């Protein structure tokens, strides 16, 4: 093979890679893909990533926003964790998301509120705190008596 042929092959390689990767990502997209990351997430993962539209879609399709769901590693910590959407919103310090969840029917009883406030104490977001303080409740246990997920 001549040096010119080698050189021309080298020049053509990037376009071939772009084309092949493009086709592969198009074909593999529905199953989670390889080139691009998957677009399937749990409601708590959607909350953690600020994916408002997915949160709305899941709630409108009947997913219970009060139940804990798995959150993969590196989103809200180094390891996978089970969190309710409200807990994920507080962990992510996303007051707007928390408001959407509360408006969307998330029930926050005294024990759940205590957990949320203790998570927020670790993160310390003022807007989230204001939202949590606005939820009526009786006396809450101190954080050292609350199990934080």
């Amino acid at each position, binding site marked *: 093979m001549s*040096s*010119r042929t080698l*050189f*021309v*092959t*080298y*020049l*053509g*390689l*990037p*376009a*071939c*890679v*772009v*084309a*092949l*990767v*493009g*086709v592969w*990502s*198009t074909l593999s*997209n529905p199953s989670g893909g390889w080139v*691009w*990351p*998957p*677009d*399937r*997430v749990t409601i708590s993962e*959607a909350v*953690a*990533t*600020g*994916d*408002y*539209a*997915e*949160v*709305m*879609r899941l709630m*409108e399709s009947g997913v219970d926003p009060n139940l804990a769901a798995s959150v993969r590693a590196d*989103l809200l910590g180094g390891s996978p964790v089970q969190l309710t959407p409200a807990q994920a919103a507080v962990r992510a310090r996303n007051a*707007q998301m928390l408001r959407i969840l509360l408006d969307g029917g998330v029930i926050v009883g005294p024990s759940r509120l205590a957990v949320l406030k203790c998570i927020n104490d670790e993160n310390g977001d003022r807007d989230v705190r204001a939202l949590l303080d606005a939820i009526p409740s009786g006396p809450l246990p101190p954080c050292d008596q609350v199990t934080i997920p």
Partner: protein
Amino acid sequence: MHGARREWPRVAGLLLALAMALSIAHSVYRIPVQVGDSLDVILVSRHAESSVELLKDASTWSPTTLRPMRYLQARWLSVLAESLGTSYHAVFRGTHAALATIIVGLIAWIANPRRWADVVALGIALTVLIGLHTFDAMMREAFPVNHYAEVAAAALFVLGSSLRPHRLISEIVVLLALVWGLLLIESAGLIWIVIVTCAALRMPGMRTRTAVMATVVLALFFIARWQLEISTPGIGSHSSGWGGGVLSGDELAARFSTNPWPFYAYNVSGGALSLLASEPRFGMYQLLAAQAAGSLNPVVTINLVSSLGMTVVLIICCWSAMRRPFHQWSLETKTLATGIVVITVSAVLCAAYIKDDIISTAGVLYAVMAYLAVQWALGRLETGMRDTSVVALALCLALVAPLWGFRAVGTHYELRRVAFTTRNDWALKSVNVLAGGDSASRDDVARTGRLRGEALRQRVTSPTFLPDWGERYWVE
């Protein structure tokens, strides 16, 4: 046997273009219909009783633009979706994705590769097309279909049909595309530019009579604008980049209202440089901004080096081809000349307002020119690698080919980010608010609800899951 072998490069080129077209169409199709720029147009387009009434009404809605086709095509597409019983998403986003495919296909049609070296040149040209920020601008936004993409496709068709023997059907399509384009967006004047340039350069598929008829169409368009008392937007109607920062509309008006020429000159040169060097963007020189901020994202360097490298190859190719007397000009040289004219006029169109979309038609012509320049450079390689200028060309190509491939992948990355933000726009407001509040009609609320539902059902990837480094290397 030999005949079949000769067809292989053509087939390979077609497959390459098809693969690139399908993947970019897929990335475009994933973006939901936009709230901003699209929803209002779709809703308003259905208020009129008929298309004729809409044509009349929409012609008087803006004091600075005459774009009734924007509303008409939105109406026709939404009616099509309803009559087919399919989603608005499928029709609107499908049209946009089809436009992306058509643009890629038209470039392959113009290139018409016959040798393996041509296939390589086509591959590089397609990465230039997809990697250019002007192409990204055409694909990321819709109004609800991107008008600039329609103009770019029409301009490519005019060029492609001019390169082939004259056919009456092509002539009719060219003129219809001009009429359609002019009623869609003023940038369609570039279609006229391509028609007149191809006729002036005596390309085989373009007759003088077509150029004359196109000129009559353009004149009628300007007369209609004048009759409807439509003026041109002046300085201060938009914010704009200036040096390393951005000036608001008021700041621009205060600084340039008495003498706008420095601003016009800045924008015209900026428009041309934006395409040829990927700097500035929207009039702002990111290198200056980076100097002020003390940090430079790699994306700026990558874009600058890849664009400048390709532009250098282009300039050398143009210089070499155009030194000959006009009667010796080949079709390739005439195509390069057409590209230069379109880039120049597009830069002039940026005088009052500079943005990526305005130079997007020039961007697709730049990709065609890149094909011809790489094809020419590869031809020079055959003459021997000992010539210093050939070695310099080879080094330049060796540098820019992978960089453009990298930029092309970046466009897919960027379109995924756009899909996420576009979908989120639907989630943060209620259907009633999106439809226009308490004054919204029941039909408007119903259509908005349907569009919102479709947008939410459109699965997208959160940028959180995309590689962190992508933002620094691909997003400006």
